[in-house]
C-alpha cells in the first residue's frame, strides 16, 4: 500500500451489538483444540485505536459512532506522523527513524475499535486516582533516585535494564512497537507470551493461587475455562515492579475470549486497595497477526545501558574540570 494518507482500504464490519462484554457459557465462538478446549491460539497484534484512558471531555461516553471514530482516528494519525518529523538540531530529533524500521505502522493491521478508551471501569474510562499510600511510595522511590539517576545500572528503569517491559506483565497493554502476543495451547496449559516479554505458562485446571506466593516479575498465574473464556488470576508481583505505582499485593484477572476467526477479546481487572481505592479494568481486541513473533533477547544486545552510563561519567569529568 503506497498511499501514505489515512484511507479505509477494506472495511469489515461485524454487525452485532456494541456491548463489549463476552458472555461465558454462550454459543461456541471458537473452534476446538484436539483435546476439546476452545482454541485461542495464534499470533495477535495488540494495537488498537482506543487510547488507554478516555479523554476527560467525553465523560461517560463509552463508544464513538462510526463517523466520530473516523474523525478521531484521523486526528490521532496526523498527530503520530508528526512524531517522526522532528526538527533537526532539537532534542526531539535525537532518535532513529521509526518509519525506517517499519515502526510507524503496526504491521499493516490495526483493529479499529469504536471504544473511546481501553479502560471501561470506572465509568469515566480513566484509571482511578492513587491512594495516599501509593503516592507516598511513589514519592519515596523518586526521592531515593534523585541526583543518583546515572550512578549505576540499578538506577535506570526496568526497561532500560532489560528486566521487564511493563506492558508485557499482566495486565497486558498495547505499547509503541512490537505490541504483539502469541498464545500456545497444550493439554492442561496455555502459554501467553508478549513479543518483548517472558513466556507465561498457565495451568488450566482451575487450581487456586498457591499460598506461598514467591514474588516474581510476571507474578504467578493460574487459569480456568469459563465456557468460551479463559480466565487468568495473577498475584505475587515483585516488590520493585511497581506497575503504575502498584503495590506487590496487586491482583490481576484477565479474560481472553475468541470473538471470531481473526479476533480475540482481552479484558482485565486490577485490584490493589493499597494503590487504588476501587478496582479498575478494561478491554480491547487482539487481532490476528499475519506473521510470527521473533526472539527479543534484550540484555544480550543492551549497548544502550553501557552508552548511557559512560556518557554520564564523561559528563561528570567535564563538569569537574570546569
Amino acid at each position: 500500500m503506497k498511499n501514505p494518507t489515512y484511507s479505509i482500504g477494506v472495511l469489515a464490519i461485524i454487525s452485532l451489538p456494541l456491548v463489549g462484554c463476552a458472555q461465558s457459557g454462550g454459543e461456541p465462538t471458537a473452534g476446538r483444540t484436539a483435546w476439546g478446549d476452545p482454541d485461542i491460539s495464534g499470533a495477535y497484534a495488540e494495537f488498537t485505536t482506543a487510547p488507554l484512558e478516555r479523554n476527560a471531555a467525553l465523560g461517560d461516553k463509552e463508544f464513538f459512532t462510526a463517523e466520530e471514530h473516523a474523525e478521531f482516528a484521523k486526528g490521532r494519525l496526523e498527530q503520530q506522523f508528526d512524531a517522526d518529523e522532528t526538527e533537526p538540531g532539537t532534542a526531539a530529533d535525537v532518535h532513529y527513524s521509526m518509519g525506517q524500521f517499519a515502526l510507524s505502522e503496526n504491521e499493516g493491521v490495526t483493529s479499529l475499535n469504536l471504544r473511546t478508551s481501553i479502560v471501561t471501569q470506572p465509568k469515566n474510562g480513566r484509571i482511578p486516582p492513587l491512594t495516599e499510600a501509593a503516592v507516598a511510595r511513589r514519592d519515596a522511590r523518586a526521592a531515593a533516585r534523585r541526583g543518583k539517576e546515572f550512578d549505576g545500572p540499578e538506577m535506570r528503569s526496568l526497561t532500560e535494564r532489560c528486566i521487564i517491559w511493563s506492558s508485557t506483565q499482566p495486565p497486558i497493554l498495547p505499547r509503541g512497537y512490537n505490541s504483539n502476543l502469541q498464545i500456545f495451547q497444550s493439554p492442561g496449559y496455555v502459554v501467553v507470551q508478549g513479543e518483548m516479554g517472558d513466556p507465561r505458562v498457565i495451568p488450566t485446571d482451575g487450581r487456586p493461587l498457591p499460598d506461598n506466593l514467591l514474588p516474581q516479575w510476571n507474578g504467578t498465574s493460574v487459569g480456568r475455562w469459563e465456557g468460551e473464556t479463559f480466565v487468568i488470576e495473577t498475584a505475587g508481583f515483585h516488590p520493585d515492579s511497581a506497575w503504575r505505582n502498584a503495590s506487590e499485593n496487586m491482583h490481576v484477572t484477565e479474560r481472553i475470549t475468541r470473538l471470531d476467526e481473526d479476533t480475540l477479546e482481552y479484558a482485565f481487572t486490577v485490584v490493589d486497595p493499597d494503590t487504588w481505592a476501587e478496582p479498575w479494568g478494561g478491554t480491547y481486541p487482539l487481532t490476528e497477526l499475519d506473521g510470527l513473533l521473533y526472539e527479543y533477547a534484550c540484555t544480550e544486545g543492551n549497548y544502550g545501558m553501557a552508552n548511557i552510563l559512560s556518557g554520564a561519567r564523561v559528563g561528570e569529568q567535564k563538569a569537574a574540570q570546569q
Partner: protein
Amino acid sequence: MRLTTLVILCGACILPAAVARAHHAFATEFDVNRPVTLEGKVTKVELINPHSWIHIEVVGDDGKAVTWMIEGGSPNALVRRGITKNSIPVGSELVIRGYGTRDGSNKAVGRDMTFADGRALFFGGTQTPGDAAPPQ
C-alpha cells in the same frame, strides 16, 4: 455479545502517544549538540534487540579508516516484512545523519540512514531527512 471491530488495512496506521519512547530515552545516550553526518561502508550488521546496530567504516580526511556504530530500531517488524540478515550487504555504502553518543565515542543514533544513492535501507523507496514515508 461481541465487540464490533472494524479491521482496516492501511498503508499508514496509528501509534499510541508513547511512539517515540524506545526501551530507553535517547537524550540520555546521545547528544543533540554532537550532530554527525557520516558516509561509510558497512562492515557488520547487527539486526538485534533492543536496538539494531550497523557498523560502518568511515575514511577521514587523513585517509584513516575509523569504525562507527550506528543505532537503529528493533528488527522484529522488519523481519515480518521479509528483511533478512542479508538485506544490507557488507560493503554497501551508507549515508547517515544522526547524533553522536554523549561519551564522545564513535557511536551515533541514525536519525536518517540511506544507501549512498538515496535508496531507503529496507524498503527501496527514497528517503530524505524528516521524511516518514511508510514501507510498501
